[in-house]
């Protein structure tokens, strides 16, 4: 085992090097997060003119608030759906491309493109494609007899936001799977082929198990993405509508806090979200760092 050890002459120097990073963490993360925790125990008017300590009342209210429970349910459908769709498609594209002999670089470049599109732009684009009055897809769906209306039908709205949120994430997953596939020794697959295993069997017995660390890593990352980074997509497409059927937790924090100016409840909701992301991160570090073994 080789260890690298740098010896600083000045004892303060290492702290000086650490300072910028620490300052950024404290100012942009710990401070606001602390504020949120404090505010979650308060009830306050919008202008901050009167503040009362209410203990855990904001949290207790959440448990009794049907719209919050609905938001939990919506997130529990939305996040796994986005994860499944984007990881699944990423894998399918990567495997297809891996089998391609010619032009794979062009396809790879094209598949990565969506990742460069800003989420809000992606949202608007899907909103146009699915717009009930001017969109292309409802027009095509009408031809097969389905009346698409995401402005009223909760299921349609959910499908829309899941597709819009997954679309750009497919590129990200695709890249990781590409790298993962290249790390699989060709000799192993060839040996299996000589033994008479067909492509499907080879995939399920060799390729997919060897990709499992990548898959697990991506599952966690995508779950975090779907729960926290999909705000612009929701904002640009449904805005949580119809009847809160796409109002995921992170969007509800925004609506209650920034539109509704209900700061206490919004702060309590962000603390709950913080707890969820901490849990997910712990899981990720514990298992992914240890690597999935088979």
């Amino acid at each position: 085992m080789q260890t690298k050890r740098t010896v600083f002459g000045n004892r303060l120097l290492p702290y000086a090097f650490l300072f910028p990073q620490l300052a950024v963490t404290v100012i942009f993360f710990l401070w606001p997060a602390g504020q949120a925790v404090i505010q979650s125990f308060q009830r306050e008017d919008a202008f901050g003119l009167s503040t009362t300590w209410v203990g855990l009342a904001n949290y207790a209210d959440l448990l009794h608030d049907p719209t919050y429970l609905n938001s939990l349910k919506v997130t529990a459908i939305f996040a796994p759906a986005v994860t499944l769709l984007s990881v699944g498609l990423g894998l399918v594209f990567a495997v297809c491309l891996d089998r391609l002999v010619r032009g794979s670089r062009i396809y790879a470049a094209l598949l990565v493109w969506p990742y460069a599109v800003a989420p809000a732009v992606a949202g608007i684009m899907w909103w146009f494609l699915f717009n009930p009055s001017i969109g292309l897809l409802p027009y095509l769906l009408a031809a097969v007899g389905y009346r698409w209306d995401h402005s009223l039908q909760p299921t349609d709205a959910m499908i829309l936001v899941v597709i819009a949120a997954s679309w750009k994430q497919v590129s990200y997953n695709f890249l990781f799977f590409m790298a993962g596939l290249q790390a699989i020794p060709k000799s192993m697959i060839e040996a299996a082929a000589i033994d008479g295993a067909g492509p499907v069997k080879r995939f399920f017995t060799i390729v997919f198990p060897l990709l499992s660390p990548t898959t697990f890593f991506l599952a966690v990352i995508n779950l975090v993405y779907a729960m926290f980074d999909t705000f612009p997509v929701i904002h640009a497409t449904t805005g949580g509508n119809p009847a809160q059927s796409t109002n995921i937790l992170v969007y509800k924090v925004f609506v209650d806090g920034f539109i509704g100016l209900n700061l206490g409840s919004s702060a309590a909701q962000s603390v709950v979200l913080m707890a969820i992301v901490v849990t997910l991160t712990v899981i990720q570090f514990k298992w992914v760092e240890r690597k999935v073994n088979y």
Partner: protein
Amino acid sequence: MLTRSLIAGLALTFLSGSSFAATEITWWHAMGGELGKKLDEIVAKYNASQDEYKVTAVYKGSYPETMTAAIAAFRAKQQPDIVQVFEVGTGTMMAAKGAIYPVYQLMKDTGATFDPKAFLSAVVGYYTDADGNMLSMPFNSSTPILYYNKDVFKKAGLDPEQPPKTWEDVESYSKKIMSSGAAKCGFTTGWISWVQLENFSAWHNKPIGTLQNGIGGMDAELTVNGDLQVRHWTNLKKWQDEGLFQYGGPAGGNDAPPKFYSQECAIYMNSSASRAGVIANSKDFEVGFGMLPYYSDVQGAPQNSIIGGATLWVLKGHDEAEYKGVADFFSFLSSPEVQADWHQYSGYLPITEAAYKLGQEQGYYAKNPGSDVAIKQITLNPPTDNSKGLRFGNYVQIRDVIDEEFQNLLAGQKSPKDALDSVVTRGNKLIADFRAANG
């Protein structure tokens, strides 16, 4: 050489600037696009008219964004002098007594000439306290009116000069329009909450809440689940099922205007401030204007419609000189010339009697048919307790609740009565929360 002359030039600018030292007044607003340009023009005109004060207008995004920005700025002690707040934010602003400088007080303190009676009562009623004092300065107020496609009316064999007067008309005209193939849909509407519930109730002289729709005090509660409102929502659901009515989406209803512009729907209800947009987008057909429809068997209908739009609130925490400037600027803004110009350009209501008169003298209404429908409708009768306006805490969220329950209704998940009952229970919970936070 170049740098030196640049520095000299800069120094000169600063020096000359400080010798006049105009007092800076900041105004945060939510008027984008064409309206924003017009607003900048008005401000430039004011700045050019005198050299004591300099107003800087800053566009802060949508109405909620502007309001949130001003509140955040107030918490950080960086608030602007003036902020434009939409009508549903009135309850929140009014309750923040330590943050706002009531306009009647400001005008009195600075000794500015100011006559609250010069303003249209239908407009001011929305923004006065229980004692009749004006708390904010009306700037852009509108009211929903009815737009219709004359060409489609003609094709359907209807009289293109007769807009539908009653909901019975709307129904029968829509059926005729659809059966004759003149258009695919009868009518659509923007702002379900504002047009098909709040204004609908006022127009029929029915309350939406206790204590004069909340204007009488913070203990008010919602009562929008009355028989007439249930009847109307029942009809809207029925008409949607029959295809007569098409839903334009929540809040402002982004999908509604394209339905009218593309001649898919023949009748369209929305803000009078949409007039410029409607005319610009209806190049292929002729537009007619009418008042909102009413149910002919309802006693006391039509009453008068209520306003929407925004007013200017003055925030505390600045020095006297700036407030003097704010008062002076407000006098300028409410002068007949500025008001008439703004009203005629935008479709917002003329907020003073004088501005309306000026428009009549200029022959504006004769030249632009339909441009006075809004003001006629809002002044049709002296406002009653049910038609002065409304004021509830957390009303921004209550509007969302109305949209959500309407969506539940149209999606077939709730009956009209259940949907409106939910509006009342959920709305009253929000009102109670607001009272607790501001008590």
